[in-house]
């Protein structure tokens, strides 16, 4: 592929390793595209061009000597701006942190990407504190959807999703507390994975809700997602949720083995009964189920608790934990939050300790119910978003579609979940599907996702942007 900006991380890493492309060439091409097109998309809060070029020159010299740091040697990455990058401020897209000092160290996930050879291009737009958005009353504008700039790119990892779809970088880091990796993946036709809770360290990431927060990879292809996750996993003794895995996590070897003999559980009631989906979304999900069946998997219907129950548990836990983090600022500086962030974060003040405990008890039960369903099937197939992305300038539509999704269940239970495109709507907006796996079985999740991607060629979906 001649267009550097649509190169996958895997292809670019191979080209760099083989001496066919220089990291400097790649970084320069992307910085040029960002300079031309980002004013239309607002994916970046800060482009760290000088540091990226310096790192690219170092990576070029190392590659010339045959010294590759890891599987991502020379590959640019964007970082959601609630994640610390040494030397850059972490603003959380909020006036609260607008003038704070730069982070002194990298978040663990950023350090792991750098150790694998990745080059940080800059900090990316988010909803304020990963919850209040899209908002036009913050120090920076919200990111826009490259498929149609009048539409929402999903959130809260908005800049990660829109920047990938715009061809600004092949990989980005996102975070997911109620669906914030999978929402932009769904809205922007990219691939986003919320890994198993505890698989990727959250140290150095500004928390939204301790027991629901996940860090994960966002890319344009399933293979890149698997490659990126492989560099992120690993025990971190300084993250209390981090798990110790007995073996290394290889997500690439089985990627193209297909789905023959796999059992897929189709959670139809999510989009057919609980929250009826847009017909084009529903048709896309049926196409995925049919395709996987024709590729050799068995597909059976599965029932889980209702989406409304999952959503209530997610919101009580999320907003209670978030209130414990934000209460002091909300008391002293309520005007420094945007309206949406202020409203959503203050909700926790009106929830009682008993509500939090009730939600936690229901959560324990929901974990058992999802685990029980996953005894009989290998992977769950269900909706991610119930609608294509709505317009970004219509607050009522944003509010209406905010909870029309099936992502929160797997923040509640901690199971790994991946969202990716099924195609485009008649209006040219991305449609999506979600796959959910057993704890720590991201490899099977990637295998199923790759099968759908291979058959449907979803990795060839790119918007047309003119600068």
């Amino acid at each position, binding site marked *: 592929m001649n267009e550097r900006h649509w190169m996958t991380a895997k292809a670019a890493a191979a080209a760099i390793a083989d001496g066919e492309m220089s990291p400097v060439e790649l970084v320069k091409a992307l910085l040029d595209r960002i300079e031309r097109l980002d004013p239309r998309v607002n994916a970046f809060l800060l482009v760290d061009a000088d540091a990226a070029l310096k790192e690219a020159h170092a990576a070029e010299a190392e590659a010339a000597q045959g010294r590759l740091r890891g599987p991502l040697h020379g590959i640019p990455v964007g970082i959601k701006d609630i994640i610390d990058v040494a030397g850059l401020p972490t603003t959380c897209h909020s006036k609260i942190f607008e003038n704070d000092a730069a982070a002194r160290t990298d978040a663990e996930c950023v350090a792991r990407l750098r150790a694998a050879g990745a080059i940080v291009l800059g900090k990316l737009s988010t909803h304020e504190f990963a919850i209040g958005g899209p908002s036009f009353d913050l120090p920076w504008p919200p990111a826009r959807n490259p498929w149609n700039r009048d539409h929402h790119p999903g959130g809260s990892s908005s800049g990660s999703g829109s920047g990938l779809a715009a061809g600004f970088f092949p990989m980005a880091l996102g975070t997911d507390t109620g669906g914030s990796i999978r929402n932009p993946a769904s809205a922007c036709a990219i691939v986003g994975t919320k890994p198993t809770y505890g698989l990727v360290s959250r140290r150095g990431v500004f928390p939204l809700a301790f*027991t629901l927060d996940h860090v994960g990879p966002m890319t344009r292809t399933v293979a890149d997602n698997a490659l990126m996750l492989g560099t992120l996993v690993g025990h971190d003794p300084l993250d209390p949720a981090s798990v110790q895995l007995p073996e290394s996590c290889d997500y690439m070897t089985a990627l193209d083995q297909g789905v023959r003999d796999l059992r897929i559980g189709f959670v139809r009631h999510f989009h057919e009964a609980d929250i009826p989906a847009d017909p084009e979304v529903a048709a896309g999900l049926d196409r995925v189920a049919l395709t996987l069946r024709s590729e050799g998997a068995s597909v059976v219907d599965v029932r889980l608790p209702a989406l409304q129950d999952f959503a*209530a548990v997610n919101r009580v836990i999320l907003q209670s934990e978030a209130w414990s983090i934000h209460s002091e600022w909300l008391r002293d500086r309520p005007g420094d939050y945007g309206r949406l962030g202020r409203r959503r974060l203050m909700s926790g*003040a009106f929830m009682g300790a008993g509500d939090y405990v009730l939600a936690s008890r229901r959560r324990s039960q929901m974990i058992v119910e999802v685990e029980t369903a996953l005894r009989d099937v290998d992977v769950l197939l269900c909706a991610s978003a119930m609608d294509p992305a709505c317009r970004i300038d219509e607050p009522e539509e944003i509010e209406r579609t905010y909870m029309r999704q099936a992502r929160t269940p797997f923040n509640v239970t901690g199971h790994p979940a991946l969202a990716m495109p099924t195609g485009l709507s008649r209006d040219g907006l991305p449609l999506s599907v979600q796959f959910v796996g057993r704890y720590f079985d991201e490899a099977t999740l990637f295998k199923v996702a790759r099968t759908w991607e291979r058959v449907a060629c979803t990795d060839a979906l790119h918007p047309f942007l003119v600068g």
Partner: protein
Amino acid sequence: MFAMDQRMTEAIARRAGLERALEEFPDDVVAAAISAAKVTEVIRRSCRTPSEPWPPMTVVRK
């Protein structure tokens, strides 16, 4: 649906230390209270489980 009246909303907000928000953004305080009332109502109605909440969140490799 919204069981919390204006006086109760203000009382809870003041107890939480949100006097300033009450003064400067009263609509946002009310919206936050309504939103909280909606989801806590679902939780109080639907939680019929003997499960205990501890540990808060853990994932076990099988």
